[in-house]
């Protein structure tokens, strides 16, 4: 089958590429665009390691065809912070030991980013429920939840100070 011309906005930059419609978005990101933050954990829509933000929704990019994503606005962990300018969530994951091996972390943080956009002041229970599409095999989740709650508090404090 022939390749399709696909246009995306990835981390704020327009990109164009040719891909077969059946190619999965995670493969396009990692292999064509060298954006390797989103990981492939299960490739069966269960683990959430491949989570990206697409048009304002948290999406498992192993379960979207490149063709379906044509025209979409995508943000990955690379678009949230840089080594010199970490996102508050990244800082809090570091401070609260929200990661051990780090494999799940890009997906966790990208999902947590959208969760806090929708619910800036979540309870612990809301964080656990809102993060239930992301698996971690190391931390036991406790410190991930702590890190997200700390990031929410920090973001809210900054917002309040600005007002």
């Amino acid at each position: 089958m022939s390749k399709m011309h696909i246009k995306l906005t990835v981390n704020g930059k327009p990109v164009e590429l040719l891909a077969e419609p059946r190619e999965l978005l995670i493969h396009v990101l990692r292999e064509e665009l060298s954006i390797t933050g989103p990981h492939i954990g299960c490739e069966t829509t269960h683990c959430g390691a491949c989570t990206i933000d697409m048009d304002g929704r948290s999406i498992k990019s192993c379960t979207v065809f490149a063709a379906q994503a044509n025209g979409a606005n995508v943000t990955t962990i690379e678009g949230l912070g840089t080594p010199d300018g970490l996102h508050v969530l990244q800082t809090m994951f570091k401070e609260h030991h929200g990661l051990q091996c780090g494999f799940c972390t890009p997906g966790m943080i990208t999902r947590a980013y959208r969760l806090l956009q929708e619910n800036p002041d979540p309870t612990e229970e809301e964080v656990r429920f809102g993060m239930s599409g992301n698996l971690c095999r190391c931390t036991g989740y406790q410190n991930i939840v702590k890190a997200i709650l700390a990031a929410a508090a920090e973001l809210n404090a900054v917002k309040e100070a600005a007002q």
Partner: protein
Amino acid sequence: MIPAPFDYHRPDTVEAAVKLIADLGDSARVIAGGHSLIPLMKMRMTDIAHLVDLQKIGALKGIAIDGGTVTIGAMTTQHELIGSAALGSAAPIIREAALQIADPQVRYVGTIGGNVANGDPGNDMPGVMQCLDATYHLRGPDGERTVKARDFYEAAYFTARADDEILTAVSFEVPVGGQAYVKQKRKTGDYATAAAAVIIAKSGGNCSAASIAMTNLSDTPVWCEAAGDALVGSSLGAADIDNAVDAMQAVINPQDDNKGPAAFKRHAAAVILRRAIERATSRA
């Protein structure tokens, strides 16, 4: 996990989508959120040469409550169902069920149309739709027709929808009474081991109407007419609920699988139905 090749189409009207499917024939398939279909395609369990993506068809989106009738466009996502305050007050059972489907990422893309058209007995919305006595709206080359949710499911992955029809919407009358969707699952994000959708109306302390449907306990969802009838006119006491559970057991047909042996599922079904009846009653 790469599916077999296919051609991709993104029509922007229902008419164009129906025509595409008619022209392309058997090997064309509709894709909505893709969160049931893509996993099957990855395992190469389907034979699809053309995917017709409905994402751009605005007419398939949205929730309308007009008079006493609720109409939900097929492409409305589970996330949107949960976020609709109007739907949450007209039919809270939909929100309660949607919150128990999969996980946040899946709910952002999974649609009500995909969930009810799919035909997987594990899907949660078909039982809810049967409980609500919902109507499915289908559009094919010969125009529109409707099928009741209670008549739609024939066997696993076999439904009354013809291959060349698109499900455009579901609709139902705003229900009267207390509602509950109770689901037993092995872990977050899993399909039901057993689930029950229940609506109970009361008048003067007695049950005046009841509707009961069970999920994932047969090769289709099961609307248990006799179980509801067992409650109507009763005071919803322990013996009445026992009668409803017995009537439900007579019409489900669970099989042994990785969720457990059939006997265990029957046990779970009884526990879940009791809880759902109690919860719906407390809300009636």
